[in-house]
């Protein structure tokens, strides 16, 4: 079955009706040809003949949101596994590899049982720290690790490293990569136009004949990736926890890269099950953009991908619904970064009919002609740079609206937060004027063309949107914005951007060398506790509330283990000092009046 669609920015017409200059906007003509195989695999083809290259990609409609507890990170780990070859690629002799892989699984299973003992010991308080810390391995675990290493070395001798990549590169391909998001996993490459068939061979073979070799070694690479992306980044580790706070029930709660302990324990068997469920052709979309003939591409798709059997079970749907946020949530972090404030609300999925209204709301606020810059930077002078407003990355299960601003020297977090919220209040109560609304729509229209300029990027967007459920998001994400009215903005702002549904993140710059002398005697846990407690106390501007918080801390001091007591005491003392200052300030205010 195939249909030939003409993708026209019909939105351009609407825009014409509303804007003054009567110069006709040319229509963007993007013809997307669709084709579906009998096994359910869907294809999108876009012809572009300027240069003899083809951008090829495919999306597996699976991301970290499909993962279950204990297996977080499997979608991303699996993305790495897809570069490990087949029974004929990346191997000198697969028949010899197979028994080694089985032995590896057996050792892994024993290792898993040993770690369960460590976990039990940890629950009893007989083991401290990270259970996978190499320095804390039990003799039995060391022994099993040595066996594992020996088997891996044996297999390594049979493996042709990175052969799969080498074949592509030797044939002049470039930009070969893959990425995993909450919702989708996408595999991308750019190939010379004369090598179109190579793409079909390589991509269908790694699906038809996948070998999950080096499954356990690859997690070392993933661990390094986590070190680079999360742990060595000044703010990424905090951002990860903010996400976890922000999404309660939605499976965006856990990071795409997975919780470290889960990644350590995923087995090859789980990998195989994941593959057969989510990488069946009925859960995939292939995309080609570039210098090729769609008729030939269709033939090749039938020939190569037509070999994949339809999946035996339908991938399970995600049934978890987000629960309503009942109260505002806050996080205060000290990191190597300039002081900043973020405020975020949950909004709607990318395909939702209200998604356009949030984009308009963000468009009104952001940029140098936007409201945040005018108010926070130009008029009040309390923020630096360009404060941001975003309607979020398009996602399948839910979206968000986020504001952010960096503090100008001498201004506080609470002040910035209040100024950001004042602009939200304005969105909720005052209808946007015609000219300002049109400005945002003009931007969206121009951007709808800009996003089509680069073929490789266009391929990625089509694959990603297909993975979210509909590639036509490329079109509707524009037309939805162009249809938004002033009333729509008022309505969604009032319904979603409410005070009790906000999530606030404050960053302050981590203090440098001279450490707080009072904290010097505490251990790391104690220091961490005091810093966090102080950050929370700092956030309270009202004396009565502060008194209550200090009282809570004090009663907490009665309950904590003895070694934590000094830390709590310091926090209480600091709280009292701050309370006194606050009360003094309040009473002098009152005296003035």
């Amino acid at each position: 079955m195939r249909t030939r669609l003409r993708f026209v920015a019909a939105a351009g017409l609407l825009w014409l009706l509303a804007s003054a200059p009567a110069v006709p906007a040319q229509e963007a003509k993007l013809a997307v040809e669709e084709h579906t195989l009998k096994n359910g695999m869907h294809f999108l083809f876009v012809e572009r003949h300027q240069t003899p290259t083809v951008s090829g990609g495919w999306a597996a409609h699976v991301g970290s949101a499909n993962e279950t507890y204990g297996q977080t990170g499997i979608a991303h780990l699996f993305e790495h596994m897809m570069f490990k070859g087949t029974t004929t690629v990346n191997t000198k002799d697969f028949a010899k590899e197979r028994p080694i892989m089985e032995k590896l699984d057996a050792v892994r299973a024993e290792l898993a049982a040993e770690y369960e003992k460590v976990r039990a010991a940890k629950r009893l308080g007989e083991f401290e720290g990270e259970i996978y810390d190499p320095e804390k391995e039990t003799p039995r675990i060391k022994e099993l690790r040595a066996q594992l290493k020996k088997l891996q070395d044996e297999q390594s001798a049979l493996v042709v490293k990175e052969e799969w990549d080498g074949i592509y590169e030797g044939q002049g391909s470039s930009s070969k990569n893959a990425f995993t998001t909450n919702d989708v996993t996408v595999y991308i490459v750019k190939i010379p136009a004369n090598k179109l068939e190579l793409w079909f061979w390589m991509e269908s073979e790694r699906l038809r004949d996948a070998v999950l070799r080096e499954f356990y070694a690859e997690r070392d690479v993933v661990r390094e990736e986590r070190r680079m992306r999360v742990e060595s980044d000044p703010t990424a580790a905090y951002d990860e926890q903010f996400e976890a706070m922000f999404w309660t029930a939605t499976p965006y709660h856990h990071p795409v890269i997975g919780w470290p302990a889960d990644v350590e324990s995923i087995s090859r068997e789980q990998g195989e099950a994941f593959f057969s469920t989510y990488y069946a052709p009925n859960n995939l979309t292939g995309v080609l953009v570039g210098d090729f003939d769609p008729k030939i591409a269709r033939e090749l798709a039938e020939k190569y991908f037509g070999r994949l059997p339809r999946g035996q079970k339908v991938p399970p749907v995600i049934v978890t619904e987000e629960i309503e946020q009942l109260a505002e949530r806050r996080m205060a972090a000290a990191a190597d970064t300039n002081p900043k404030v973020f405020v975020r609300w949950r909004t709607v999925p990318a395909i939702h009919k209200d998604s356009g209204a949030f984009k308009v709301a963000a468009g009104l606020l952001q940029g140098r002609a936007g409201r945040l810059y005018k108010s926070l930077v130009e008029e009040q002078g309390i923020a630096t740079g360009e404060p941001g407003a975003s309607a979020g990355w398009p996602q399948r299960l839910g979206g968000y609206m986020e504001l952010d601003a960096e503090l100008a020297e001498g201004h506080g977090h609470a002040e910035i937060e209040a100024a950001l919220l004042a602009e939200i209040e304005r969105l909720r109560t005052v209808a946007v004027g015609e000219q300002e609304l049109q400005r945002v729509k003009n931007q969206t229209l121009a951007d709808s063309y800009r996003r089509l300029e680069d073929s490789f990027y266009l391929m990625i967007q089509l694959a990603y949107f297909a993975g979210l459920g509909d590639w036509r998001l490329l079109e509707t994400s524009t037309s939805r914005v162009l249809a938004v009215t002033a009333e729509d903005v008022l309505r969604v702002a009032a319904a979603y951007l409410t005070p009790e549904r906000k999530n606030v993140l404050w960053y302050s710059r981590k203090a440098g060398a001279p450490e707080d002398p009072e904290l010097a005697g505490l251990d790391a846990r104690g220091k961490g506790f005091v810093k966090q407690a102080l950050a929370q106390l700092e956030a309270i501007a009202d004396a009565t509330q502060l008194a209550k918080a200090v009282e809570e801390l004090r009663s907490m001091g009665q309950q904590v283990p003895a070694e934590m007591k000094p830390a709590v005491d310091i926090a209480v003392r600091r709280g009292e000092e701050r309370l006194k200052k606050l009360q003094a300030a309040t009473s002098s205010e009152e005296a003035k009046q």
Partner: protein
Amino acid sequence: MTRRARILIVVTLSLSGVVSVSGAGEIPDRPEKLVFKPLEYTPPAVGDARFQLTNGIPVFAVEDRQLPLITLTMLIRGGRLLEPTGKEGVAALTGAAWRKGGAGDLDARAFDEKLDFLAAELSTTFEDLTGTVRLNVLSKDFDQALALLVDLVQRPRFQEDRFALEKTDQIQLLKKRNDDSFEIQRREINRLWWGDEYWRNRLPTQASIEAITAADCRAFLALQLGADNVTLALAGDFNRQEMEQKLNGAFGSLARLASPVLRPPRPEHAPVPGVYMVDKPDFNQGGVVIGHPSVEEGHPDELALRVLQEIYGMGGTSRLYLRIRAAEGLAYSAYSRFTLPLGGMPGAFVISFQSKSSTCIRATQIAREELKRIREELVSDEELKRAKASLIETLPDSFESPEVTAKLFAQGELLGRPAEYWSSYAEKVRAVTAEEVLKAAAAHMKPETLVFLYVGNTADIRGGHPDHAGAIEDFGPITMVPLRDPLTLAEPAATSAAH
């Protein structure tokens, strides 16, 4: 050539037009058995795109009517090279404040709003050796946006309140200087290679930024905004004849510079080989940069070096990547290359990776072993073939869009790349032999002059890993590099050279 590329695949169609589903037997078990026609690709010719304005400004125009957008870029030779001493940061500040400070009859806000309503993107930036003014707009609005661009070039306002804001922003940026490992690596390796006195290493401080006035920015622009010192790149939905007229109207009156921009001076500093360490105890991953100064684009060995770097350290099948990432899982990313810059900047040979602290030494050992091997043994035919194919068949990527093509040409002319560079590129790559690669490796990879820079938890990096022998001292004497104050760049009082 696209026609030819398209008909090479044998399609199995039965006479009735029904697709005959091929049996699995027709699909080879290995991809080498697939047969492809050669890719016959001739890069677009510089001459076809080039024309000149009446005052001599070269324009490179690549027409493409597919989308109703036009991109016009002005490239300027100068940049940070022209920063006066004591006003370090004037390039970045001018880049930020120029576009944001209003122009012609419009104050900053009115200028922003007009561009914004047209949904035009207009940006100004300055880098080490160049400046860029880029406009992207729907073609129907091009004339209006061009008028704004002309005002910006000829009548910038650098409005005072905006200027003050941009200065504050630049100082805010300085504060982040020590937050990110990559930024520290970049800054310190350049100092180690080329010394504090070299122009590229004269960096802004809070004091130097505070000393800059709007008049300094105007003077900075006046040093480089001349007809003999800029090129234009034009791409997208336009008619060339019309455009020649429009651009002559817009920029034909731009005068020549009072004095030409000279080629940058050479660094005089001789790097001291050895190990240098910057302590960031919180980082649990070491950021490693290893390298030494090297040659520039246009050197007789350039193409041999491009082949060599493919094999040694670029991409997913290089020796470095295969061993550090694929075989031992020590790093997520590991690469090496020759920077081969244009326009009088010194080049460098660089190896870079991030590894957990305890395996930085091990990964360095591997890089050194591979360095030794590639300097002593001929590369294999397979490697040579793959490297050349990769360079030749990815050539179309350099011309993947009209904007990229036009800009590549404009930049080449500005910085002195010969016009025939691209047309003879594939042929030159094809001619490189394994012997030439070996000779280039021996001549341009100099293990005895390497500078090893480690940024991270230095105690853990030096501690190494129980499974691997060797100490960091094996790579040379150790110097601890203190983290300088982000605002003043002053070194902390207690500077120490370790044993």
